[in-house]
């Protein structure tokens, strides 16, 4: 298995949509073949269309607010004592997380194909919140599928979706989390694909959704590359990019522009959710060696039993609480371009406390997983190493959990 240089990773799949010959694909009911093919044709045409790119960039700039900040965490760097610690504050983006890029692109595509309704899944509620924002902006009706357990634990985002006029449909099947929300959303699409567009909330699902999402979030690394050159005059000689990995959309977008660099120069570190320390139900298929299986239309490493039933996961962060992982990351893992590890619930909480103590930055529980590993590793790294963590979400949505786990003083008002 080999990663090619000079070709975007999203375009390195084969004719049937498999990366490395075995990850991804289109394991979908016959009914979805046609809408998926239509979307493929549309996207393949538009992703090279100057007018479309112009339109995308206009909304990214004026509405999402690009570029998001790239800042040095001076206090944290001093405290840790090792590599320089920086952050790409993607939570600056309109809505508070990277999910806005994919949501915006899907709405632009839906608009162009004349669809009136757009549906989507959500775990942490960010994908749903952003889709509801973009749908409102572009005049589309919006339905969001969300596990009943997630609805309870991510109320601020649920409220935001409803305020934007979206229908939030609770999903009660299975573990009542993201995995079930995606299933239910796909089922709804099977029934309504003639009138409705679907947005998958991460770089998962049938191959075309993986590609569209990866293409959209790559905005993050396009900005970062410019910011690095402005700051250092070049892409630093020792650069490490830490990102949490749920489905894998923010991490892929954070890395994409640096794909062709030697990994000795630009290393990618993906941090999965290890769940509570004493649990086994980890949402970390790459770290703990899950077997390849099919989930939501794509072949990937996925937590499952020997029969092929998908296993439940457990994580404090709803956004990482997913048994599968993007085919793109399976590919990056097996080609050894990226390295994957996990942080536990407790480690993520601790990292959140450290970051908020020393910096005026408030990463949500998902990026707190990445901070945890980055802080640990930065200690042992030289001063000329640049460590960057993608702070891809804001902790406002987690206030309920943080208050319960850490007490009131960690929940700032707003």
């Amino acid at each position, binding site marked *: 298995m080999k990663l090619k240089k000079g070709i975007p990773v999203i375009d390195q799949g084969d004719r*049937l949509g498999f990366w490395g010959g075995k990850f991804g*694909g*289109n*394991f*979908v*009911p*016959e*009914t*979805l*073949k*046609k*809408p998926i093919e239509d979307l493929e044709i549309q996207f393949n045409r538009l992703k090279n269309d100057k007018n479309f790119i112009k339109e995308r960039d206009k909304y990214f700039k004026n509405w999402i607010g690009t570029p998001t900040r790239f800042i040095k965490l001076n206090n944290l760097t001093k405290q840790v004592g090792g590599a320089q610690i920086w952050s790409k504050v993607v939570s600056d983006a309109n809505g508070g997380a990277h999910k806005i890029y994919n949501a915006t692109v899907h709405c632009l595509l839906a608009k162009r194909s004349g669809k009136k309704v757009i549906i989507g899944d959500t775990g942490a509620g960010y994908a749903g919140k952003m889709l509801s924002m973009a749908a409102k902006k572009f005049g589309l009706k919006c339905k969001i599928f969300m596990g009943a357990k997630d609805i309870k634990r991510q109320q601020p985002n649920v409220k935001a979706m409803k305020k934007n006029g979206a229908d939030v449909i609770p999903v009660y*099947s*299975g573990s009542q989390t993201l*995995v*079930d929300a995606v*299933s239910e959303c*796909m*089922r709804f699409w*099977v*029934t*309504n*694909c*003639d009138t409705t567009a679907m947005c998958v909330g991460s770089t998962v699902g049938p191959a075309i959704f993986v590609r569209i999402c990866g293409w959209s979030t790559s905005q993050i690394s396009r900005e970062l590359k410019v910011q690095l050159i402005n700051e250092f005059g070049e892409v630093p000689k020792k650069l490490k990019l830490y990102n949490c990995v749920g489905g894998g959309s923010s991490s892929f977008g954070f890395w994409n522009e640096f794909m062709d660099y030697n990994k000795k120069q630009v290393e990618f570190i993906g941090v999965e959710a290890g769940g509570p320390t004493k649990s086994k139900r980890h949402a970390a298929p790459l770290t703990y060696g899950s*077997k*390849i*299986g*099919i*989930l*939501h*239309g794509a072949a990937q490493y996925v937590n*499952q039993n*020997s*029969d*092929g*039933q*998908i296993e439940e996961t457990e994580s404090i962060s709803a956004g990482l609480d997913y048994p599968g992982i993007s085919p793109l990351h399976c590919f990056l893992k097996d080609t050894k371009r990226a390295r994957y590890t996990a942080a536990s619930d407790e480690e993520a909480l601790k990292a959140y406390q450290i970051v908020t103590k020393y910096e005026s930055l408030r990463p949500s529980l998902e990026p707190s997983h990445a901070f945890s590993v980055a802080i640990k590793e930065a200690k042992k790294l030289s001063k000329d190493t640049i460590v960057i963590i993608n702070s891809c979400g804001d902790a406002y949505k987690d206030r309920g959990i943080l208050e319960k786990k850490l007490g009131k003083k960690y929940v700032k008002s707003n």
Partner: protein
Amino acid sequence: MLNPISLAFKNAKKKKRPALLTYTVAGDSSKKQSLEILKAISNYADILEVGVPHNTPVADGGQIQTSAYRAIKNGIKMNDIFKIVSDFKKTKNSKPVILMGYYNMIYQYGENNFLKKCKKSEVNGLIVVDLPWPENKIFSKKCKKNEINFIQLLSPTTSNKRLKSITKDSHDMIYYISMLSTTGGKLKVSPKKILANYNKIKKISPKKNCVIGFGITEKTISKFKNTDGLVVGSQICKEITRSLNNRQNPVINVSKMVNKLRKKIS
């Protein structure tokens, strides 16, 4: 010699009626009871689809999901499903069996192992919901080699070009999904429209037995008498749930229902 599935269609045709295909989930509500249900409905149905329960089913509606979750909760495993089929096949008036499920279950078992086991337990056909054409080309060839009918699915969204390629690569039986829906949806398209699509398929591929499924219930079944076969699934699963909720015997109730269905198309 005709394979058992084709023979079942031929026998139904002799009696000038469509073949009746039922769908029940293996292990619903227990291993033993699902076997009892198969034995009982085999008096009235011509071909039995046996669902392999999966916990992330992207094409099944509420009724079949409920049955599948019930079966999984009761501990059903792939090997139990093969055992149910082979026990059923040992009974006197057994009927052809088609396993229906999602590809991950086959993938984890290993395609070759899975087919070996199918043969041994006398499974006659396979429907793999999420392995469409052309992704299924290699596997369907393997099925053919093992004398197992790989049943291709067609849907209202299938283009004419695709339709031709798929039917060309199909075995003796094909399955037309009546409408855009998961299983268990109400019939939202007129029977006339469904039959027009059905006839289009028959015109392209007159020799293959084409069944219609999705939205077929006691209420709608008689509108499709002039077809090769009809599949009833969700209504049966719902009847199992209803019986359990009312503390009645699902075996008796389901068997009554299938008898009625059969009468409506006879």
